[in-house]
């Protein structure tokens, strides 16, 4: 199979696996069929999904190297944009459904609750990455583009902290994410070493 066909097929799978669940979950939540507190459900679902997809974006390049399938890198932007999509849903669901358009409360919460502050920092980063994802902007930015997109590592770390701080006492699930994060960052240890040598 030609690489372009593989890329097309994999992108189709990603679209289905990422978009359809969101549509169905929102449908169920709107119809009050998603557990007893659909608001909490939908916020948790979109948040965890964004984190899962972000980790997948970090998995792509080590996997492409390991499996010697360079074409895989072509789907990374799409995954990143879906992470952004879920991050937007997550933030907007919190504002619209949890706080019910109380903008002043939203601003208070962002300032006063450390885990929300961290979440908003992460959102600011992913917003920048998403807006600079167009090929045209990428070529215009040249070397700076890569520097900016290295913030992805910080972004995923902040999201893990955001998740860890948001739970009451059940730290096992956030811990698993920290382990995954560490594993994925460890794959890039040479890159990090190079940064610090300079």
């Amino acid at each position: 199979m030609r690489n372009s066909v593989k890329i097309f097929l994999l992108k189709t799978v990603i679209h289905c696996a990422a978009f359809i669940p969101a549509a169905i979950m929102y449908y169920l939540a709107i119809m009050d069929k998603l557990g007893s507190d659909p608001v909490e459900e939908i916020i948790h679902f979109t948040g965890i999904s964004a984190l899962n997809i972000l980790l997948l974006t970090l998995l792509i390049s080590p996997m492409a190297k390991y499996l010697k399938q360079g074409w895989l890198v072509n789907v990374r932007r799409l995954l990143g944009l879906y992470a952004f999509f879920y991050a937007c849903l997550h933030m907007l669901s919190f504002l619209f459904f949890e706080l019910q358009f109380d903008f002043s409360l939203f601003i208070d919460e962002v300032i006063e609750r450390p885990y929300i502050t961290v979440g908003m920092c992460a959102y600011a980063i992913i917003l920048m990455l998403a807006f600079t994802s167009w090929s045209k902007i990428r070529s215009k930015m040249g070397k700076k583009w890569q520097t900016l997109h290295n913030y992805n590592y910080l972004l995923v770390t902040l999201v893990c902290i955001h998740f860890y701080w948001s739970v009451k006492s059940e730290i096992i699930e956030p811990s698993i994410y920290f382990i995954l994060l560490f594993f994925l960052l460890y794959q890039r240890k040479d890159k990090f070493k190079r940064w610090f040598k300079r």
Partner: protein
Amino acid sequence: MLIKSKKKSELVESQVTDEAIYYSRRKVLKQLGFVGASALIAGNSLPKLAWANSNSSFKTTALDFKKSQYSDIQDKLTPEQKVISHNNFYEFGAKKDQPAELAQNFKVDPWQLKITGEVDKPFTLDYNELFSSFTIEERIYRLRCVEAWSIVIPWLGFRLADVLKKAQPNSKAKYVAFKTLHDPKQMPGQSNRYLGGGIKYPYVEGLRIDEAMNDLSLLSVGLYGKTLPPQNGAPIRLVTPWKYGFKSIKSIVEIKLVERKPKTTWNKLAPNEYGFYANVNPEVDHPRWSQASERRLTGGGLFARNRIETQMFNGYGEEVADLYKGMNLRKNY
């Protein structure tokens, strides 16, 4: 003539999805491979899809009760299905839907509730005595969780004061300590840290004796006209509606009158977040949740406009404010 005006939000029969169609939709979704696809994204959310058609196998029975002055409140009741499927009962899992799923085989009979400690006449209630020793009344209370959501529940139960008086507390009885059953075989959260959210078991709680003697303090043995389902704390639990939900200890096996302030589970775990008193107070925030307002879970799905301002003492100030006269509620949260 009865004139009934319909609210916009009220459903009519024709809008309710037929059960057969509802289930066939679920089947189609499954066949579409949705279950597989979404497992990739958030496997956690899958159990919630089964929410609406979960059958609880635990048998509850109807109870005889009389209405009380607290049966008559203006707040709209939270639907029974939500009350029995949205539970913080970490002994059966730290996620809200896990207790309803994992507690169905919980054995409540035989049961023993000991009333002991600084009393002249300690006694024990067995399972049947829980329902026959005191007059059961219905009380509709608001329940406010520290996580800033709230529900309205028709409880059945009797005054904690009546139980304590029967035991005749002595002059050393200054506080009341409560303990939940410790049975890791039946309560998977007690043997599995992942399920149990990493808190220490058995769950313990406490009240000052005057709080316990307050007319509002209820030992509940039922809700919605029937005995309690296990996820709601069967066979007997505490309800203190002016305090955050975590004070309302479930599945109680021991009530002990003591001289010193007893330990409480969440206070031990994170003393800066959960105080001994845990009175609902819109002016004192929890580090993670503003307490100024709350979401009232009734029905209506994602777009339900249900954010309301939180009232001091959850609206029960008239009954309980005197208990805290002269106390700094910022310090004694």
